[in-house]
């Protein structure tokens, strides 16, 4: 019981501890778990799709641990590598750019609920770091700051390829942020809130999941999210066969790793947003919070029942996130790359009108149904 006593502390102290735990949890999940493990998953999954074996060389005394040691060797390699700044580059901006890219990717997660509200020993735990009223808009705002990282990197490298990459990032991100913002309006209209926790709570019933209420919105948002993520088929800013490596051509070592990490964190963030908005967040299909908690309280008592429910919900949330990450990786390893102008055309001429139509139709239905 001692370990759980913190939940009984009333007032601010409990809140601070709860907050700290949530931040540590999210930070560990993202930086400690997903960012490194995804590098491994991507290798192994692509290998599986391509009839290869995949990473299996790094070993300790002959034990390879299914290639998991490559995560460690990657880290060591990136840390000890020379941090190269090309001649003529803007040293300050060149150094700041990767930070600008990676920090927003981390912050964006703060408004995503990874669980509901739980009453533990009289303390209400709300499993979201910052339950902002503007919710999803905060993610857009922060994500667009991340774009600056890539643009500045392209500019500061003093390299034409980087510059082209940087310009492509700017244009692509700008276009898709517009479309992305509009695709999500349907969700706001349906659930009547911008608050991520409200949207999550409203999806307790399986048939009220965002994907059923906003199927077109889901596809459009998913497409935009992939484009925001700058991965194949939307990886025109880095397009390794055209622009060498695009905006991070001149980056090496840890700075390069930061761009890389930002990319993986964005995959996680996008999957989490999709889960929260379209796939019922932390809810288990057909099993409501009250049902699960009620069933468990008959066995272990109400407080522990809530605690177990909380863990189950958090687990379900991350499971959904993992499935969506997998889906994104399958797409990444299947499709070829767009051309720059085709990406623009898709954004402005197809997704934008469709999302406007989606808003109109959603509004009409809401008006008629009430």
């Amino acid at each position: 019981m001692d370990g759980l006593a913190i939940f009984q502390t009333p007032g601010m102290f409990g809140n601070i501890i709860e907050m700290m735990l949530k931040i540590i949890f999210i930070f560990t999940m993202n930086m400690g778990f997903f960012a490194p493990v995804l590098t491994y998953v991507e290798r192994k999954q692509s290998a599986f799709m391509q009839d290869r074996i995949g990473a299996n060389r790094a070993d300790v005394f002959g034990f390879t641990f299914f290639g998991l040691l490559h995560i460690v060797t990657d880290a060591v390699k990136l840390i000890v590598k020379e941090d190269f700044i090309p001649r003529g580059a803007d040293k300050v901006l060149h150094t700041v750019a990767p930070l600008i890219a990676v920090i927003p990717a981390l912050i964006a997660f703060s408004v995503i609920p990874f669980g509901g509200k739980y009453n533990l020993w009289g303390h209400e735990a709300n499993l979201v770091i910052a339950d902002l009223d503007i919710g999803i808009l905060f993610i857009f705002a922060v994500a667009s700051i991340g774009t600056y990282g890539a643009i500045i990197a392209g500019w500061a490298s003093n390299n034409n390829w980087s510059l082209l990459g940087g310009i492509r990032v700017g244009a692509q991100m700008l276009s898709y942020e517009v479309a992305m913002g509009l695709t999500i309006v349907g969700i706001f209209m349906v659930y009547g809130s911008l608050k991520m926790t409200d949207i999550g709570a409203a999806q307790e019933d399986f048939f009220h999941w965002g994907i059923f209420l906003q199927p077109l919105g889901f596809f459009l948002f998913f497409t935009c999210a992939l484009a925001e993520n700058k991965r194949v088929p939307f990886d025109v800013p880095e397009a390794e066969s055209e622009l060498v490596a695009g905006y991070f051509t001149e980056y090496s070592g840890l700075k390069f790793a930061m761009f890389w990490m930002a990319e993986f964190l964005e995959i996680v963030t996008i999957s989490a947003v999709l889960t929260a908005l379209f796939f019922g967040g932390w809810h288990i299909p057909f099993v409501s919070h009250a049902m699960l908690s009620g069933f468990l309280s008959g066995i272990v008592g109400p407080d522990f029942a809530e605690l177990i429910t909380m863990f189950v919900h958090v687990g379900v949330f991350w499971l959904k996130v993992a499935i969506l990450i997998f889906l994104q990786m399958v797409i990444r390893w299947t499709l070829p790359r767009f051309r720059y102008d085709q990406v623009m055309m898709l954004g402005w001429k197809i997704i934008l009108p469709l999302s406007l139509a989606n808003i109109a139709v959603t509004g009409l239905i809401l008006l008629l149904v009430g």
Partner: protein
Amino acid sequence: MSVENDARMDLHAKEMILNMGPSHPATHGTVRFLLKLDGEKIVHMETEIGYLHRGFEKHCENGTWTQAFPYTDRLNYNSAMQNNVAYALAVEKLMGVSDKLPERAQYIRVMVCELARLADHYTNLGAAALELGALTAFIYLVESRELVWDLIESVCGARLTSNYIRIGGLSADLPEGFKEHVKEVFDKTKVLCDEFDRLLTHNRIFVDRMRDVAPISKEDAIAFGFTGPCLRAAGVEYDVRKANPYLVYDKLDFDVPVGTTGDNFDIYLVRLEEINQSIRIVEQVLEKMPEGPINIDDPAVRQPSKEDVSSKMESMIFHFKNQIEGIKVPKGEAYFATEGSNGEVGFYVVSDGSGKPFKCRVRPPCIPLTQAMGFRVQGAFLADIIPTFDMINLIGGECDR
């Protein structure tokens, strides 16, 4: 002056000069593009070749006629067999022994040529997919190519640089159980290639990247000297195997796919169909191939067998003379054209009557294709260089020699 131009005047916009290559991920085969870009649009493009020049012709002049074979391997290393065959045919034409070549050798030569074509097209199409971002599709075709190379390895012992053909014959007969091995390989490659086809041919993104990119008209293609899949994609039905049949191509039944627009997608489709046709040819060859000798029975042309060397006077003499002085090719010159994977591969050989080539010039298909790069991508986007350059399949070894 249009509004757009007005705006550009105010902005003091100027074109960007960009140096693409020679060390750039897309300029494999080592070539350099000097681009003048307006935004991402190509205003002008200069192509510079020669980074892989190794002095092929001079090398050939320093050895005997037979010793040139390993050098020909390294021209188009994707389809080394075809270079071997083309060179051997040119020398045989000069010696006037073409019609003495045993039928079995002719069939085997056709077969290895088509296997090489398979390997070449697999690599080329796969690489094109790779550079457009479809890494998975690339791996499927590379796996097919490895399987075909297994076949070539079982024939001659080497996967990449075969050195299998000899003047007046072959270095060895086919291994045992080759027919079954071929069937096994084709069963697998057909599945892989089919998967590749389904992944890309109707993929909207892929079609958008390829269709209507860098088209070329019939007249322009001919004027530039295009041959092979690129010419046929432009709508000209010209295939050396049909137009000037050599070896036993006239006894085999195969179609020549022809495109209409000459754009990258047509070249892609022509190459994809040629894979099927090559498989057809190989299957027919295995069906029709007679038993018999594989070498011309003339010690002055083809190195005699060890058995003959120790039992026949004349064979013994030529055994040493061929080694020390080289095969004597009568004075004169000859040009022989064959259909390589990328187009017409021709050898122009001149002999002064000694055992060494006086001149050995190869006509590579890539040079005209590379030459037209700037013409074809003018006004297109920077990203269009990638599929265009991939579909012409420049091989540095062949282009720069």
